[in-house]
């Protein structure tokens, strides 16, 4: 049974990575949000599996929180945002897609190499997943670097959180409950503040292109 569990978790992990790549390649914001929700779903799936197999009950709670937060609330907020701000398209990335893909591949390899020696020590059922989590984090990082509009950057930021969360659950069966709650709270508040910001930026520059935000400089 544990074997199946491991396979399932690995499957979910693969899905996460795939979605991360997809987000990296995605141009349309709406699709980006969908992908994000999907990623959240995969995350919930893996968490539940881990909880079910290992009987770590508090993981159910965190799965629930994750579901509520990352599959329902945040995508909803984001949808409302882009509808209110009516920004549908995000054509240009600072780096063209194929290059990003290549860089992404390199990053994944790098992440795996980093993770291999560590995951040896992992007592948990899903040893390989730490590498995947790290890869997800780095990919989201790359996405944030390469996006030139505010909303995708935010999504990249959230995706990074996903990767972190996945690392927490799969590698260590989740952090202590207090910490998880704290993290969740921070993420939520952060989202709200982000929303406020996006509106402020919008009314200030009537666009969400962060290339307007380059006036403070020292060169």
């Amino acid at each position, binding site marked *: 049974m544990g074997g199946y569990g491991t396979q399932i978790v690995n499957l979910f992990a693969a899905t996460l990575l795939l979605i991360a790549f997809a987000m990296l390649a995605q141009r349309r914001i709406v699709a980006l949000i969908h992908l994000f929700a999907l990623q959240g779903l995969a995350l919930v799936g893996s968490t539940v599996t881990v909880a079910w197999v290992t009987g*770590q009950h508090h993981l159910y709670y965190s799965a629930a929180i994750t579901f509520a937060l990352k599959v329902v609330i945040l995508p909803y907020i984001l949808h409302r945002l882009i509808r209110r701000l009516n920004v549908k398209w995000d054509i240009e990335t600072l780096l063209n897609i194929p290059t990003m893909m290549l860089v992404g591949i390199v990053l994944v390899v790098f992440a795996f190499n*980093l993770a291999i*020696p*560590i995951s040896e*020590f*992992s*007592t948990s059922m899903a040893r390989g997943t*730490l590498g995947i989590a*790290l890869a997800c*984090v780095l990919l989201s*990082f790359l996405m*944030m670097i390469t996006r030139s509009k*505010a909303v995708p*950057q935010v999504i990249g*930021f959230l995706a*990074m*959180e996903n990767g*972190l969360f996945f*690392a*927490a659950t799969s*590698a*260590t*069966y989740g*952090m*202590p*409950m*207090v*910490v998880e709650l*704290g*993290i969740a*709270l*921070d993420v939520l*508040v*952060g989202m709200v*503040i*982000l929303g*406020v*910001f996006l509106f*402020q*930026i919008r009314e*200030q*520059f009537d666009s969400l292109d*962060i290339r*307007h*935000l*380059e*006036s*403070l400089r*020292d060169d």
Partner: protein
Amino acid sequence: MDVIVLLLAIPLAGGAILWTWGERESAPEVNSAFSLVTLVVACWLTAMVIEGGPILGFYEQFFVDSLNVFLITLTAFVGFTTSLFSRPYMRTERDRGRMTGPRLRLYHSMYQVFTFTMLLALTTNNMGILWVAMEAATLATVLLVSVYRTAASLEAAWKYFILCGVGIAQALFGTILLYFAAERVLGREGNALLWTHLDLVKGELQPAIMSLAFVFLLVGYGTKVGLVPLHNWLPDAHAEGPTPISAVLSGLLLNVALYSIVRCKVLADGALGSHFAGNMMMGFGLLSVVVAAFFLSRQRDIKRMFAYSSIEHMGLMTFAFGMGGPIANFAALLHMTVHSLVKSAIFFAVGHAVQKAGTQVMEDIRGLLKVSPRVGWGLMIGTLAILGMPPFGVFASEFLILTTAMREHAWATPILLLALGVAFAAIFARVQPMVFGDTGHPRLTHQPALTPVFIHLGFAFMLGLWIPPYLAAWYEQAARLLR
């Protein structure tokens, strides 16, 4: 009732209350009152620690030893004096229409919340909660940075938010790795993230994991410390936010972030048994000092300039902590204290100076000694103090740091000294004409609060000439905790 809980409860309650009536005329006084009570409780806590040694509180969730208790007092103290300073400052801002009711409400309540997060980060025993608190600190201040709603302030806040958010995310990954390493030793119970427990078993933690974890933690919290090249948010946030916020950012937030790094370094050193962590910190420190020093000479905005000087001094402390050893740690802690005192004092003076001149551009600020000698002298003396002129405490700590460096890493000393010289030339060349000379600036509508400035400078002066024995003993105790 646990003292620590009380200590945390007060600012939290203050935040809640001020959220409801923070725009009232009396709000600044209430704000100061809360800060004062916090300070009192902090002193009480300090007294307890000095007598009874380290305190564990609330199911081991809180832990106060001689390392963080002095930071707690410092935080409470600077928090209080800053609230005093912000009374006339904010009133003047309101008269000038830059602060409206809602903004004031936000400001006052967030001020208390920020104090709360700082104290939480300092008192908590749980590395996870530490992370949460640091993130919360960002969230509490980010809206204050953009409170003026100008394009520049929005941009600054956005950068602050994104860069620190991303950074802190790295820190979270580090924490996870830490937990991952710890749970194999301490088991799956919640206490696998408790620093006290980690400290006991740090020898058994897995080196390979710990080195990765430390890298993530360093990059994460280092972003908040403002280590080059992760510093880019810092000057913007300092320059664009209201001056009291710049003061607490420089005086408190950076300290606490560095404090978290130091806590992690203790664990990493224990696990790796090598000087890996220390070397990394020294590298960052040196880079920060040098780069910041050369940035200084390009500044036009006064607050921005002093933000860079903060980066420089943070780099110096990081370098000192990186060197390790009782003297260096002692010096670094001393430098931490003096730097927050002096730098916040400078920002107080700068705040009033900027309000007088109505601009932050240094070319347009002139003749402070003429319009209001006290602001002028405050800025002048503060600057000289921060530049490491004796007999101020900054010189004492820099003397210790440099001499230790000469002993252990002689190659680094000339570099540091060069950077300090460049910084001196750059800063003083700009401050002198602001203080001296003639001007036609108007008087302020509200009597500026300069008592905090001179209290801070007075302490700095004392620390340069005479460190009270119990304070010294206390520093040494703390330094010994860090090895």
